[in-house]
């Protein structure tokens, strides 16, 4: 090229551009944080999942909590997996971006052990109005650390039960017992399965994921006498009981389950059963609120509820709680506790009930909730069964043998999320018919053995 450069001038122009850019960036950097405004008093940040009960919390906070205390609350709503990653990242790097985070019953004891969470017992004991004794015992047990202290305050809790379409049962002259066995459920499913009418006998989760497929399946394994690990960490994934339970579950879905079962999780089953396209559904007790809401479900008022089906145990419902925890990195511990105490307190439930509707109360954590007449009236069909199912669930001893870690439908160790998800992918493939249960569980046993080596 024949063109000549004029380096001096060019350098000057470039420098101007860079300086302009940097100045702009620096100036605005100062104002960056104010871009979304800042409250006058103290401000706390809350990270939570987008479940309906949490959305209600975000809705009523400004007009109530902030008005009462002067503390502004900023919410970030993320899906479960992103939330777990964010909190882990924030706490591990001491980022201190969040004062309160929503965590599940699976994370609470593990994160407490890692030293990531602020213990809440001392706050709860000192807070006269909190009434810690009113919290349901299994909830407290599942959210406590090894030191017996509470590390996350339950916001709402759930167990699992069997939901059935009363109209379909009546049409065939069938009666659901209060405490059905899995064999009875399988017979009902066979009788009510009506492929021509597009009605499945039962809807069960087949979507891979430790919290999807393995939530109901682990409860089936428990009641069939199986376990992931024995007390001394001997893996039992390909043991006869585990295999029998998994085969039963897979065969039941393949014979009388919903179409597209390998991709069906909670949401898909909620929709299938809510549309009247399944005669039964075994899943979370928290589904009942949506099923009884006529604007979201075609079976509102037609659903019957029974205890989680059993085989060799007397009960088998799971135990889960969404709870509010305080990362250790928070710089606003007192304000954060005030928010947690308000959101998980008795008055909050009454506030939600009277302002948003009693079906939206975040129940399943306090005994007193079930004594509120308005709540009892709105949840007549399932309130007592939910409470009893939660009370019967035992996260310490959920099956027929002593367990090495806490958890009904999961094993309370950090490795379980990965282990459960990998095995669930194979079981889901067995539901799809592309592998066998034996092969899936043999692979699972190898993976479980690797995990057990860490603990033996």
């Amino acid at each position, binding site marked *: *090229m024949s*063109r*000549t*450069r*004029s380096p001096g*001038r*060019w350098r000057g122009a*470039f420098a101007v*551009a*860079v300086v*302009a*850019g940097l100045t*702009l*960036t620096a100036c*605005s*950097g100062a104002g*960056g*944080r104010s*871009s*979304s*405004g800042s409250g006058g008093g103290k401000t706390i*940040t*809350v*990270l939570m*999942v*987008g*479940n*309906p009960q949490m*959305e209600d919390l*975000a*809705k009523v906070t400004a007009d109530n909590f902030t008005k009462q205390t002067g503390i502004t609350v*900023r*919410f*970030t*709503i*993320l*899906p479960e997996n*992103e939330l777990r990653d*964010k909190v882990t*990242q924030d706490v591990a*790097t001491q*980022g201190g*971006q*969040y004062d309160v985070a929503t965590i599940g019953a699976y994370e609470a004891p593990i994160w407490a052990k890692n030293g990531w969470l602020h213990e809440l017992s001392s706050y709860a004991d000192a807070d006269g109005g909190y009434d810690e004794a009113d919290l349901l015992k299994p909830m407290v047990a599942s959210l406590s650390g090894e030191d017996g202290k509470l590390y996350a305050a339950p916001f709402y809790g759930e167990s699992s039960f069997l939901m059935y379409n009363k109209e379909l049962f009546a049409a065939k002259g069938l009666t659901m017992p209060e405490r059905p066995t899995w064999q009875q459920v399988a017979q009902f499913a066979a009788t009510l399965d009506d492929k021509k009418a597009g009605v499945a006998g039962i809807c069960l989760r087949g979507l891979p994921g430790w*919290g999807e497929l393995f939530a109901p399946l682990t409860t089936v394994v428990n009641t069939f006498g199986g376990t992931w690990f024995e007390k001394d960490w001997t893996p039992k994934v390909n043991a006869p009981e585990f295999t029998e339970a998994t085969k039963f579950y897979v065969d039941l879905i393949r014979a009388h389950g919903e*179409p*597209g079962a390998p991709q069906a*999780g*909670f*949401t898909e089953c*909620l*929709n299938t059963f*809510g*549309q009247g396209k399944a005669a039964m559904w075994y899943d*979370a007790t*928290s589904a009942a609120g949506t099923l009884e809401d006529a*604007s*979201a*479900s*075609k079976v509102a008022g037609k659903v019957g509820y029974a205890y989680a089906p059993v085989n060799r145990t007397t009960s088998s419902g799971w135990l889960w709680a969404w709870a509010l925890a305080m990362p250790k990195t928070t710089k606003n511990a007192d304000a954060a506790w005030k928010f947690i105490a308000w959101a998980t307190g008795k008055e909050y439930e009454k506030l939600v009930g009277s302002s948003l509707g009693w079906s939206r109360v975040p129940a399943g954590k306090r005994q007193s909730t079930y004594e509120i007449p308005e709540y009892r009236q709105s949840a007549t069909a399932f309130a007592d069964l939910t409470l009893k199912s939660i009370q019967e669930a035992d996260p310490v001893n959920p099956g027929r043998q002593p367990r090495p870690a806490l958890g009904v439908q999961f094993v309370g160790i950090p490795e379980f999320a990965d282990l459960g998800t990998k095995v669930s992918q194979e079981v889901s493939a067995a539901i799809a018919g592309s592998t066998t249960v034996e092969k899936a569980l043999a692979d699972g046993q190898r993976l479980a053995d690797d995990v057990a080596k860490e603990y033996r």
Partner: protein
Amino acid sequence: MTTLTRHGSRRRPTSPARRANGVRGAAWTTLAWLAGLLFFLPVLWMVLTGFKREVDAASNPPTWFFTPVLDGYRQVFDRDLTPYLLNSVTASLVSTLLVLLLATPAAYALSIRPVAKWRDVLFFFISTKMLPAVAALLPIYLLVKQLGMLDNVWTMVVLYTSMNLPLAVWMMRSFLLEVPSALIEAAAMDGASLTVTIRRILLPIVAPGLAATALICFIFSWNEFFFAVNLTATRAGTSPIFLVGFVTSEGLFLARLCAAATIVSLPVVLAGWIAQKQLVRGLSMGAVK
């Protein structure tokens, strides 16, 4: 007569060729329409789903005929969308301006008046795009934390600027190469200064390219999720963070998610629509064809 005959005899052999051309043209047009519709279908599906009830949105097989409702949009506006939109606009707009400001002179120095080893420089620019974003996350996170710039929208501005800069340099270079060198030499002969050459000669010619580059940078910044989810919290969250907040593991969410996605895509659609004339010219010149 002879003329006519001759004319007729000349036309006869070309007629089938023309017909063949016409058929081929029609086939291409049909194919283009089909491809266009195929690409547009997910967008249409998103917009339609936003007007469904949650129950209809999740139904399988999907429902095509339904009574439109605004429940999804109501839920979207129940949450405060404004700060997220403002953050997205700030991050995207400012980073795009910075990118253009830095990329254009860089591209000039790599095309019209190439610096020594310009090939190496070009390769260096593009090599920065070869590192997967996840590999850079931890150092970036720690650096930003040390600087006290976590959850700050200007962190996103700096990041998006650096992420889009290599692409913009390459694009702008290809547009600048299209400028006839004779024009620049003529301007120099007439005594035009560098500023005048850029303002009066170069910019009008590469304006479409500039618009295309700007739009691509804007879209990339607008849609970026990975760094936004990791580096922002409650103050600097951008629109994609607002969007994923509608995904829940308990309950139905497709309709409200689609409603939110429709709203969040509007600014990009609007930007594209405003710049469409420039874009068509810009995308058909240079390397981005």
